[in-house]
Every structure is written in structure tokens, then in C-alpha cells.
């Protein structure tokens, strides 16, 4: 491993959920802030082991859903009563009952869209270049390995000590990832 390049992060590899779970609890209790746990699948509760709260996404989605519904209903009402009022089967211009289906559908569209986009936004995705993805070790994380990464930008980060720390957590394999 040539040390010519700038170090991006130190990664430690674990092979079972149990291991990484306890490792995360330990990292959480240390003062590291810029660290993360990578798993091939969502490990339930791991975010708690990492000391994170719940996602703020739902509020965002709720707001967008309301917007969509209101917007759709308003649009239909405006069109049918103001913009283009025509006598249809002797029905009132403002036949709100008929506007419900579209209102509902648009509500769903807005919420679903905002759920996905919001998720990407909160995750700062898409991010097509990521130093971690260059590491052969790291590639296994999308298959069957569990990895804890501690970024070099962390004030408490020191290449050797941090690697040592990861080993102490029981990482089967530890390495530095360069930018």
C-alpha cells in the first residue's frame, strides 16, 4: 500500500451481524463522529447501535402529499368553475365529488415522488465517485461482509491508532483507503 496518496478512511471488516453490532456500540461510545457501518442488507436496529435517531423523511413526505392533494383539487375546481365552466349533464360546475379520484392519485404521486427524492437528498445520493468503492475489501460489503469505516477527516483520526482501534473491535481485516 503506497502512502503517497492522501488517506481517506480506515476500514475494518467483520463477517457477522453480531460482530459488527457490538463493534458499532463500541465506536458509538468512543468519540469518533465521522464514521459509518456498511452492511449488505439493512441490519435492523444497527442505527440504534450506532446511536442514531429516526429518519426525518416522513414529515417531508407528508407535507408534499398534502400539497399534491390540495393542488389537484384546486386545479380541478378552478378549471370547472372559473377557467372553463361548461354545462355537463346538467351538473353543478363545482361537482367536487367527481374531483376526489384525481385528488387522491395526485396526492400519492407527490408523496411517493418526494419519498424517493427525499431519501436520495438526505443520503446525498447519487454520489457516483466514492473512494471506498475503490477498495477491493470494501467491494465485499455488497455481498457478505460488514465494514466499519472511520474517515480521515475525523478530528480524532490517526492512521495507525485508528487501525489499531478497529482491530481491537475484532475486525478480521483492517486497511486504509486512499483518495
Amino acid at each position, binding site marked *: 500500500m503506497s502512502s503517497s496518496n492522501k488517506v481517506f478512511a480506515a476500514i475494518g471488516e467483520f463477517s457477522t451481524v453480531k460482530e459488527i453490532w457490538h463493534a458499532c456500540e463500541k465506536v458509538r461510545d468512543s468519540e469518533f463522529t465521522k464514521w459509518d457501518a456498511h452492511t449488505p442488507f439493512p441490519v435492523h436496529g444497527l442505527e440504534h447501535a450506532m446511536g442514531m435517531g429516526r429518519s426525518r423523511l416522513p414529515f417531508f413526505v407528508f407535507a408534499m402529499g398534502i400539497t399534491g392533494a390540495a393542488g389537484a383539487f384546486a386545479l380541478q375546481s378552478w378549471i370547472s368553475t372559473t377557467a*372553463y365552466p*361548461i*354545462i*355537463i*349533464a*346538467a*351538473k*353543478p360546475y363545482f*361537482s367536487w365529488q367527481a374531483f376526489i379520484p384525481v385528488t387522491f392519485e395526485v396526492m400519492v404521486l407527490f408523496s411517493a415522488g418526494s419519498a424517493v427524492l427525499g431519501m436520495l437528498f438526505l443520503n446525498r445520493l447519487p454520489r457516483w465517485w466514492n473512494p471506498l468503492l475503490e477498495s477491493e475489501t470494501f467491494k465485499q460489503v455488497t455481498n457478505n461482509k460488514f465494514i466499519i469505516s472511520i474517515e480521515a477527516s475525523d478530528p480524532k483520526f490517526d492512521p495507525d491508532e485508528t487501525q489499531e482501534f478497529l482491530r481491537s473491535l475484532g475486525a478480521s481485516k483492517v486497511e486504509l483507503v486512499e483518495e
Partner: protein
Amino acid sequence: MTRETISAAGPHNPGRRNFLSAVGATVASLQTAACIRKPYEKILPYAERPEDLVPGEARHYATVWNVGGAVQGLLVRSTDGRPTKVDGNPNHPMTGGSTIWAQASVLSLYDPERSKEPVREGEGVSPDEAVGFLKKLPDEIGDGSGLAVVVPELPSPTADRLWEDIRAKYPKAELYRFDGAGTDHARAGAAMVGIEGAAWTTDGTPTVIAAFDADPIGTEGDTTAFTKAFAAGRDPNRKPAEANRLYVVEPHVSITGSNADHRMAVKGSEVGDFLAALAHHLKKGGLNVPTLDAPKDKLDSKFVKALAKDLLSRKRGSTIVMVGERQPAHVHALGFVLNEALGNFGKTLRFTKQGPTEVGALSDLVRRMNDGSVKQLVVMGSNPVYEAPADLNFGELFQKVPLTIHLGLYRDETGRLATWHIPQSHYLESWGDLRAREGTTAIQQPLVAPLYPSLSPIEFMARLTGAESKGYDLVRATHQGAISGGFDKRWQRWLHDGVVDVGQAPSFVPSVKTDGLAAAYKFRAERAQGLELAFVRDNAVLDGRFGNSPWLQELPDPITKIAWDNAAVVSPNTAEKIGVPNNLEQSSVRDTVMVDVSVGGETVRLPVWVQPGTAEDVVVLSLGYGRKHGGKFAKSGFDVNSLRTAESPYIRSGAKVTPTRKGYAVACMQPEASMHDRPIVRDATRGDFTDEPNFVEKFEVMDEDHVASLLWDEPEYTAEHQWALTIDLNSCVGCGSCTVACQAENNIPWVGKEDALKGREMHWIRIDRYFEPKHSDQVEVRYQPMACVQCETAPCENVCPVGATVHGPEGLNNMAYNRCIGTRYCSNNCPYKVRRFNFFHYTVRNDADYGMGIAMQRNPDVTVRYRGVMEKCTYCVQRINKARIHAKVNGDGIIPDGTVKTACQEACPADCITFGNIRDPDSKVSHTREDPRNYAVLSELNLRPRTTYLAKLTNPNPDLAEG
């Protein structure tokens, strides 16, 4: 449908130039005479607009025409010089509404297959050559010993005058009459009882009408005038004694038969016997009638007894016994005798002195052709080669004649065999005059100069005498003598009114010679063996002369609802005997089988069709189909003339019908005939109506308060005009004029047989006909014109995603054609299924079929619909808007009642359609909607239709009450 286009290269194709010049000529002065050269004189291009003509403003001109001697006064709409619509002229005594043929005649003017140039021995020649030939003709004819002229029914004073000239010039010349829609049998019958040189008519006012194989509503006589009076005679407000009652005895279900109060289906050959039986009973009733031989079973007929009783019970001279042209002379003779005895002469049966005498029949001519004494044969405006009964073998003899000249609108079967074919001017292109059977003369004025070099009949007759006079002068010359001084002023008035107020044909009351009748009318012992063929004039194409009109071809037959074809029509029982399936009982009604109809060695193969109400052991064959040289539309159907004989051209016994393995699809436009006990057409007898005037309510499937309420408050219809229309089912006779009129007015395309088969016809107003097909030879037909009923709570509007069909403030259910994207949801949701969809670009297909002709006919006030667009009736909204503009320009903007007439209303001979504004309590339609018979079809759906119907009343004879 064949989609071949007419070649635009033809030398005489009506190019834009010719057409415009023609228009110019017409506009310049209506004096532009039809002449065999193109009119060089008085071309007036639009560069200088005549001040009396506003482009786009339609103008109406009165004219007149005749079909088989039935004269009709017409009003023709001319749009920028193009005739675009034909309707009846109310000023004319023999006119109420108009026939389908008059309606369709405007299209035939533009028929691209009309003959466009003179033809000599199969080769087109220049007009000048033809002129040259006609110049030399008199010398060739000499004293006329070899000259024979075949004329159609042409009741024209000018023509009569010219006959005299021809006779004067060629003393030995012979005149023969042949007209596929003519009245030879009636004439012969009249002659038998000593009535000659006369014309007669019956206008339908009688209180008892006994039609013996006669079809005065459909295909015989002055149909529109008759229908008008007949419908009026059924007015519910009439006292029972004055309300008319129609008895019909006939083999096939005619339009008249379908409107009968009592109908008896019998073989055509037995109709006469029933008439004899009637005579017998009338004689017993004290009338002066010669004793006649009649078979026992006919004498015992309950029907005949009741009829006789009914006739005798009425006031003298208030009834009529009608005999149809299909019956032989002696039956007609008896008919006259009975009417004379009933005192109907001069009352319900009126005679006028007219018509050239000494006119031979076709059989006489054939006799002469056989002995070769005919050297020059002139056939004017008829088509004997196609229509003449086969056994006359006319075609061959025709070719043997050294010189044959044919004058015709088409180079038809006769024109092809003739030495010379001369194009005939369309009646909308030519000057002339016609005298109705009732006596009134009317001037026929052209709407447009001839589109092709051609001669009108009278011009042609003038040529025969060597004169080159133009039609205009010929007609004026005829009438000049009629009045003294100030002729031009009177002339203008005649042209304007469409009737000549002088020179009425004198009416008279002939006496009848009953001697010899008994001899002629002897009960024929030998009874017909096997099946009997009944040849009938077709309800659409008549004798075939209208065969090339796609409108008429696609107009479904009122009874069978078959379009584009004729068929061997039989009763259910007869079908069973023949061994063919009853197609009416199959799920795909249209699939039927071909049968071989053979008699006397001749065989015709055509599809069989089952029609309840047809007499047992009778095969009904309509004439006029399967033309060889009638044009591409006229080809459709099957030619049955080869089965006819001159001796009995309409009835032939001893026929055999053998089913074949071949199947055939018939374009039936209403596969389902039964009403399935739904309250669609509501009816009652006059008796029940007087007992219970509100009988229509008994039919309601939902009670008022259920239907009346809406879930929301409806918008107020505040506009000045709230349009509504009522259709009186008591008057409607099902003739179909409304359908064709609508087609002409609203640029409705025809779809051709292929698409008609699939059920894609475009008619905005159709005539539903119902009957319960369970009986075999008994049938009660109900008609119901059905167009968009303009629901106030229209289901179609609610489902259109783009709002292409919306409600107007005046209660119309409008179609914004250019907004329609063609989801067809509106049609699905329309309970009346009156919406029509352009599954293909029918308009363009019509253009391809018809060249620029159809474009010239189209009404510029109505959008031409594109492919993929839904269309339907909108109460002729273009006429409403025109009227509104006029009302705004010269008035307070209120459209007076009666100023807007829908096309169907205008065309209806029975006056069964009323249209107007229901905001105005005094409008005619407001009153008809007050009528106790008024009801809405499918009222239970709470659609609040603006079109409502007045229930039908029947007037059965108590003595014949069933059960």
C-alpha cells in the same frame, strides 16, 4: 365498398373552370339555356358580383320534377350557384314534404358516372358531331314510317305540344310509352271501362282506404300528397267517423301495408279474387256492381265482409278502393267500377283530361321490331334493355334495328347498345314544365347550366323535328298563348311560385262501361302451382333508375332494413318449406344463404331473407338491383328482371327455390326487430285512447316521484330559446325521407356495404322499425324515427374526458367535432345509440368514390367531420344560428315560431315532426308537448330528453277485433 377513384383525366370531367363558368352562367341569368355546346354567352365571373347575390347566402328556386308521372313541385337550395338541397315546394298542390328520391336527386346531379359526352357506336364523339347527326336526322327519317319513339311518363304541356309537331312532321311515326315506374296496367284497366286520355289521383283524404296490392305511401302514385292527407286523416282529434282506416291486401309487406289497420297477406294472383269477392258483398249491400265470379273461400273471408260493411257504412264518395300497378288490367278495371259505384269519382278519385293519346305499349313496339318494320328507334329517358321483361328479348331486337338513339342521364344498358347515345340534362340543369295528375302545371327551371354537354328531353324532341330551339324558348312558347299581355311579369311570378296559375288541365267525371268486364274478369280455374314470385318496385331504387345513388343504396329498406342489396324475401313458414334457416332467429341475423330462384328455365341466385308478414308460398323480389351498366353503386344486389314475363310482369307462378351451400352476408341495419316488451313505441287503439287519454303513463316502468328528483340542483336554462322537438308516431309512415334529407343537409357520408355490414352506418336520424317476429304471415309494424334526443342530463357529456360534447344554453347537446379525440365513451353511454363514429375517414372515401361532385353538394354551413370523430344530430344547429342572425339583424333577436325547420321536419311528408322553442308557450311544439300522447322514450332514466314522442293510435274495425 369499392374505393376506385374516377379518372380526373376525362375530357368532360367537370373541371373547376367548367363548373365556375356554369355557375357564372346560372348566376348571370337563369335564362342560360341548356344547349349541346358549352354556353359561350353571358359568363359572369365572380370578379363582378351581381348585387342581388351575397356569397354564402343560400337562395331557393322553385322547380318541378316527376317520377313515373308523379309530379312534384320542388324548392331547391342553391349555395353560391351550387344546388345543395332539394325539398318540396309548399305552393305546389301535389307536394307535402318530399320523397327520398327528390332528396337524393341533388346528389345524382353531381354523379361522376353520368354520361358526359355523346357516343356513336361505342366511341365518344364531340358535341358538334352529335349536333351534325341530329341535323341530318330528319332527312333520314323521312315520313317516319320506320320511326318509333319510346317515351317515359312525361306529363309536360310542352312535350305534348312537341309530340304534335313530331306527328305533323312524321305522320307515320309511332309513339310508345315505357317507364319502369309507369302505370300501364292502370291505364289499360281504365281503358277497359272506357276511361281514356285522362290522369287521375287520390290524395289520401278518404275515411276508408282499401289498398289491393297498392302502395300509395311508398312506391306508387303521388306518394307525398297521399301521405300528407293520410297522416292528417289519422289525427286523434278527428271524430271516429272521419278518422281514416286503412285496409291492405297484398303479398309482400309494402310501406302502405306496414301502416295498415288491417292487413291480409295473400298471393298476388289472388288479390283480384278478393276484389271480386268485395264487389260481390258490395252488390249485396245494394251497390250497382256487375255480378262477378269469385271463389268461395274469398267470398267467405271475414276480412272482405268487414271491409264491405265498413265501405257501405261511410258517406258516399268518402272512401277509396285502390288497385296497385302490380295487378293486371282487369283488376284495375274492377277497381274503377267499385269506386264509381261508391261515388268516389270526382271526390276521392279525381280525373283530369291530359296526356297524348294513341300511345302504344312496349309489347306493341316489340311486335313491330320483330317484323323489322322499325328503322329508327328513339328511346328517351328510359332503360328498356335492363328493365323490360326478359321474354320480350328486347336487347337483341334493339340491336337489330338499323338506327337506335338513346337519350339518357347515364350511358346505361340501353345506351351501350344504341347506335347513338346522347347525354340527357339533369332536371336541375334543364328548362321544362310538368303538369300534375291533379291538373296544375309548374315550370321546371334550371339551377345550374349543364355540367356536361347535354340535351333536355324537350330540346331533344325539338331536334327530332329539326328545330334547334333552346328549352327556355320552347317552354315560354308553350305558355305564351295561355295569357294575353304582360307575359313576362306572369312568367316571373310562375318561376317564383313554382306553379302556373293558368292552363289547368280540365277535370271531369268519367262514366264507366261495366259491360265486358265480367267477361274479362273470369275466375281463373287453374291455380298457381308451387311458389309465386312477386316482383316489387324497390322502396329505395324503385325500378333501378336511382341505383347509382349511394344515399339511396345505403338507406335501409323500411321493412327489412336491408341496405345495398335485394333478397328473396319469404315468410318464416315458407322459409321452412324451402328448407332454409330463419335468419331472424340466428344470433348473427345478417348471415343468410344463397338460393336459386328458378322459373321457366331462368334461374337467379340471390340471398334469402325471412320477413314475417309476407304471404305464404310467395317469394318477393325487388327490382332495380344488379345493374350491369348503371354505375359502380348500381352494381350491388341481384338483377331479377330475367324472371319476368311481359304477359304478367309482376306476378309469376310455378317458381322453384332451391337452397345452395353458399352463404351470404346481408347488410341489415336493424338485426333485432322485437321490442322485448319495453315501452319504446307506445300505442293504443282510438277506442282505448278516448276511454283513457293518458294511456301512455300506463307504460312507465318507474313512478313519477322516483324519476323526477335529481341529486343536485340543475342549472337554469335561461336563454331566450329552448329548443325541443316532437315526433308524432301516429303520423310517421316510415318512408325514410328524413334520413336522406338529414344526410344531404349535414354532409353525412355513406360508409358502403362493408362497413354497413359491421353496423357503422352514419345516419344521424334512423327509423327504428319493430315487430314481433313470431307470426308468419301476420305482422304489425311500428316505426320510430330516432335521432339524438338532446337529453338535458345527457349521459354522453358526463363521460367525455375533453368536453367535446357539452350542453348549450339553449338546451342543445352540442358536438365540438374539432375537440373530439374519439374515445367513443359517449356512444357507449348513450342509451339511444344515436351517436355515429367515423371509424374510417369516410368523408375522404366518399370524395374518392364521387370525385369533386360530392364536394359540390356539401353544405358549407356544416363542418365536414374528420376520421376518428364522433358525430350526431344537433337539431340542424346551423339553421338555428342562421335564423338567429337574421332575427338579430332585422328584429329583436327572438326567432319567431316556425322560422327554423329541421331538415327532417322539412322533408317529412306526414308532418310528424314539430320543432320549436318551449320557452314560448304558444309555439307549436309547446302544444304538441302538452298532448296527452306525449312521452319520452326511456323516461325512467331521467334524461329529460328535449325530443319526445306522441304515441301511435290504431283504428281497427271492431268487427275484425282479434280474440
